[in-house]
């Protein structure tokens, strides 16, 4: 049943693309995606969740590149791929609609404006960082950045920690990084491996005790 559901969704996403792309062509589709993602790119701040309704309006209402119910799926998949959710949504929908060309152009559109804005800030900062006014500003920013990151941690923990197992994993992760100075890449890879093991264990448990069908 899960597989049928997945196939239906895959087809639905592919279906919406086909009519629309046949209508305006691959290059124009890819270019429209570049512009759409470039337009909203400066709105993405931090996690990028604030941009979902705007992106929905752009892709669903304005361009009819996707149906409303597909957007949820796009974001769900985008979250499962490493990298920024917003950029991943661009890559995914670009690839669906116009192949590699669409993926590359939509990705470039999602990234280019913020890279340019960041570059301007970087040039300004590197040029001005010895200025006493800038130094004083940075002194005020540093504790605020700590607060920003700490609060981001609280927000993630609220959805990620739901019991002693997940709570323990979060605490152990913090511990091995802070006290044992383990390489963070190693910690993430460890988390993925552990996740897959738990997934395997969940599966065997379900096979033994088939209580419900998803």
């Amino acid at each position, binding site marked *: 049943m899960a597989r049928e559901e997945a196939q239906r969704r*895959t087809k639905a996403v592919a279906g919406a693309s086909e009519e629309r792309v046949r209508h305006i062509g691959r290059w124009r589709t890819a270019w429209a995606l570049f512009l759409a993602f470039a337009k909203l*790119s400066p709105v*993405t701040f*931090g*996690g990028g969740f604030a941009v979902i309704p705007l992106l929905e309006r752009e892709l669903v209402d304005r361009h009819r590149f996707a149906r409303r119910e597909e957007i949820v799926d796009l974001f769900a*998949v985008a979250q499962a*791929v*490493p*990298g*920024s*959710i917003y950029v*991943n949504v661009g*890559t*995914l929908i670009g*690839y*669906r609609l116009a192949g590699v060309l669409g*993926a590359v152009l939509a*990705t470039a559109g999602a*990234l280019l404006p*913020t*890279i340019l804005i*960041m*570059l301007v*800030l*970087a040039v300004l900062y*590197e040029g001005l960082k010895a200025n*006493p*006014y800038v130094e*004083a*500003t940075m002194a*005020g*920013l*540093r*504790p*605020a950045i*700590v*607060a*920003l*990151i*700490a609060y981001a*941690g609280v927000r*993630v*923990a609220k959805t*990620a920690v739901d019991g002693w197992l*997940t709570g323990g994993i*979060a605490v152990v*992760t913090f511990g091995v*990084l*802070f006290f044992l100075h383990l390489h*963070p*890449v190693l910690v*993430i*890879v460890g*988390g*993925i491996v552990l*996740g897959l093991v*738990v*997934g395997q264990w969940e*599966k065997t448990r*379900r096979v033994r005790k088939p209580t419900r069908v998803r």
Partner: protein
Amino acid sequence: MPLFLLLIVTFLIVGIVSFGGGYAMLPVIDHMVVTEEHWFRETDFIDMIAVASMAPGPIAVNAAVMVGYRLLGVGGAFLAAVSVAVPSLFLILIFARAFFKYHRHPRVAAAFYVLRPVIAGMIFYAAASFARRNGLLSGEASWTTLLFFLVAFVLFARTKLHPALVLLFSGVAGMFVYLPHYLPH
């Protein structure tokens, strides 16, 4: 290894492991560019991340631009930014079909169930290591620094103010409060 190659490899690795996005990547970047390569001092890196957090866009890409620009100028900025973004692009090009098919699979869900608290722990570690460098953990920090932290935290957590606006407030307030420390006498 020449510097530009090292920069590319570093940010390719960041791009591959950047699950959960955002601030969970800070420890990874920090470890590779500060602890291993000694490209910057610990406090310099906080300042670079502070600037990167003020701009829109994914924090990992912004941090890549900051690091790349400081090391190799505008070319380095683009090199690092592209390196951090390219892994997810390729993953999607190769596995798009599989991603759509399996993202609801119970085993994938279980893997993320474990990975999410790991991400949370990493973000707390990023906050703690930055706090340590600010003297916020050892009690070396001044009362004003502690106050800046607490006020900012309350504004992030309890108000609907845009985070960029809160950072802007903190910067402007810092300019007034800390200016006497930095002005030449």
